[in-house]
């Protein structure tokens, strides 16, 4: 399948045939459509904050307000241990990667259905749609990082050399969201039940991740390793470590990475398999 985007290329030959099984991801094609991915991302961001008086400020306000609530309930009232960190900093350092994940997951899972008008009329690699929603979440995340840095300066916690790991950990969070998002968005095309389940999934997932409580709450050994099956455990553990110097990631992190890889590969497979029918059943 060749379909080049500009005019000086040799004339491509396109083959039309019935969809069959595993076709592989056409990365070359995806790359050619990078501008489309860019514009879809840009549209998502633009539209989200249009007609909102505070605009992109919401990306800053949301984590601040959430951390305030968490601090009052878990920090002040319940006195949850926080790995020796001030509770607001402790909570915020997990909340940011979590919100990145949750936003990306929530948006990507409904993305195909939300763009049904495109899917039924125009050809482009369908992967562009969930990908662009995940990228759009990244922009919000980048803005909210400012809050975290302000809070770090306030508590005089300055990042060390491990901060260099941060991009990789953010990537892991994105891949996790993408992997789950691929599954859910493709399923949602046929079964709209998915979009009703997603808010619930996100809620449960949040409490299954070490956001309001430290990872040490889970006993070491088998339980901790099982806990690592939740990829966000690895992400949050890594994020806190890289920025705040908490305990170094251990085997749990590796398990998390392994789970993401499995979810991502199977998600891509399922997505590719269903891709050909999206236009017919969406």
């Amino acid at each position: 399948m060749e379909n080049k985007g500009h005019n000086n290329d040799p004339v491509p030959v396109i083959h039309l045939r019935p969809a069959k099984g595993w076709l592989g991801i056409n990365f070359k094609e995806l790359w050619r459509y990078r501008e489309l991915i860019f514009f879809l991302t840009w549209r998502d961001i633009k539209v989200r904050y249009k007609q909102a008086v505070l605009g992109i400020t919401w990306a800053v306000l949301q984590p601040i307000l959430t951390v305030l609530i968490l601090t009052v309930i878990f920090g002040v009232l319940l006195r949850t241990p926080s790995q020796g960190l001030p509770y607001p900093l402790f909570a915020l350092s997990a909340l940011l990667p979590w919100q990145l994940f949750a936003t990306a997951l929530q948006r990507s899972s409904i993305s195909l259905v939300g763009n049904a008008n495109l899917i039924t009329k125009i050809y482009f690699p369908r992967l562009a749609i969930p990908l662009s929603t995940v990228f759009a979440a990244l922009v919000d995340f980048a803005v909210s990082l400012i809050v975290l840095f302000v809070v770090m300066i306030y508590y005089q916690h300055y990042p060390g050399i491990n901060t260099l790991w941060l991009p990789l950990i953010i990537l892991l969070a994105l891949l996790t969201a993408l992997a789950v998002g691929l599954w859910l968005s493709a399923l949602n095309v046929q079964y709209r039940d998915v979009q009703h389940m997603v808010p619930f999934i996100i809620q449960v997932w949040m409490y299954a991740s070490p956001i309001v409580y430290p990872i040490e709450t889970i006993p070491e050994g088998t339980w901790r390793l099982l806990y690592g099956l939740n990829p966000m455990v690895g992400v949050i553990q890594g994020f806190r470590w890289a920025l705040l110097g908490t305990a170094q990631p251990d085997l749990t992190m590796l398990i998390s990475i392994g789970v993401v890889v499995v979810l991502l590969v199977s998600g891509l497979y399922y997505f590719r398999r269903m891709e050909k029918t999206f236009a017919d059943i969406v």
Partner: protein
Amino acid sequence: MSNPVIRVENISKQYRIGVKQTRPDTLRDLVNAGVQRAGRLFKQGAHGGDESRDYIWALRDISFEVEQGQVLGIVGRNGAGKSTLLKILSRVTDPTLGFGEIHGRVGSLLEVGTGFHPELSGRENIYLNGAILGMRREEIDRKFDEIVAFSEVGKFIDTPVKRFSSGMYLRLAFAVAAHLEPEILVVDEVLAVGDAEFQQKCLGKMSDVAQEGRTVLFVSHNMSAILRLTQETIVLDQGKLVMRAPTPQAVDHYLNMGLTKQGERYWDQAVHEEKAPAFIPVALRVLNPAGEVVDTVNAAEGFSIELEYQLTMDITGLRVGIYMMTTRGEFVFTSFDTDDPQYYEKYTIRTPGRYFSRCTIPPDLMNEGRYVLGVNASVYRIQRYFQDDKALTFTVDATGAPGMQWPEPRLGPVRPKLAWTIGEVEK
């Protein structure tokens, strides 16, 4: 013909139609159904289940080729498979069977304005829509001014399109799509909307595209647009390709499809919208001079047209008439049974009973060809009792008509025998 740009062979497309779902009686049924659904969810790939009654063939064994630079029309009724075919050609969906080969990028205008976002400004939408249609950013930059000029939205370009009038919205959308430069352009019904002037402009743009040597597939219900823009047309009916021919011939065929052809039309007496209609049509017939019902009449002999009907109550000022049209929809004439003032006086009130209204078409009036008869029964400005615009078609044969010593076809629906005088101008 060496190198087709589009070649499809035995393309078929099957759709799953809504499975009849019985309402669950109990919560347990509901849960069972849910479990089954969940089970299906994992088993089902592109091919789905296998109960054939849940499926319909939207396209069946479509094969054709299109040469470089050709403008091919595609006509068919709603549901004939036109849109499905275009979706397959533009890769929106895959065929269930068969294969095809396309040499070149396919740009589709399947409903313009795809991907337009109401919250975004005209400018932003040009970029977004351009990217969706496969244009590169630099390409859009380059053509931006041209697009804005074509769309005539001018100073509103930075206003959110949700504040545009529908005309502006449409012009902007078409302007973006019209500046695509694919080798193959697929156009579906874009001309159905917009004012006449803009439609004209769109048609102009499309013929430019065709003249640049690009291949165009043009789907429309607008026969005059099809006739103007295409040389060859394929006709789809119920998912099958029934004809491929030079456009005038294909259009005639399409317009005749499904119409009765025996020279007589009976109306089903059981089907009436009102409970007790005042006017009930019975039959419409085309008769030769001998009074026989025929499908083909001879222009040189003349023929008559007869409508039989029943009145169930007194009607004052009723007029029963026919429209004669060509199969392309051009009117030839309209005539009513009370056109003649004498009859108008005589039949001021028609009492209940069975009637016929018959008119005679004089010899040497009609040209050869196939014609459509429409029927109308009404009281002028008061009430329309009955109307059927495509009640019957029939053929006129020109044997013996004026000028038959030259075998060329004559243009126009009439071929009257006119009194000519030839003389020498005196010096």
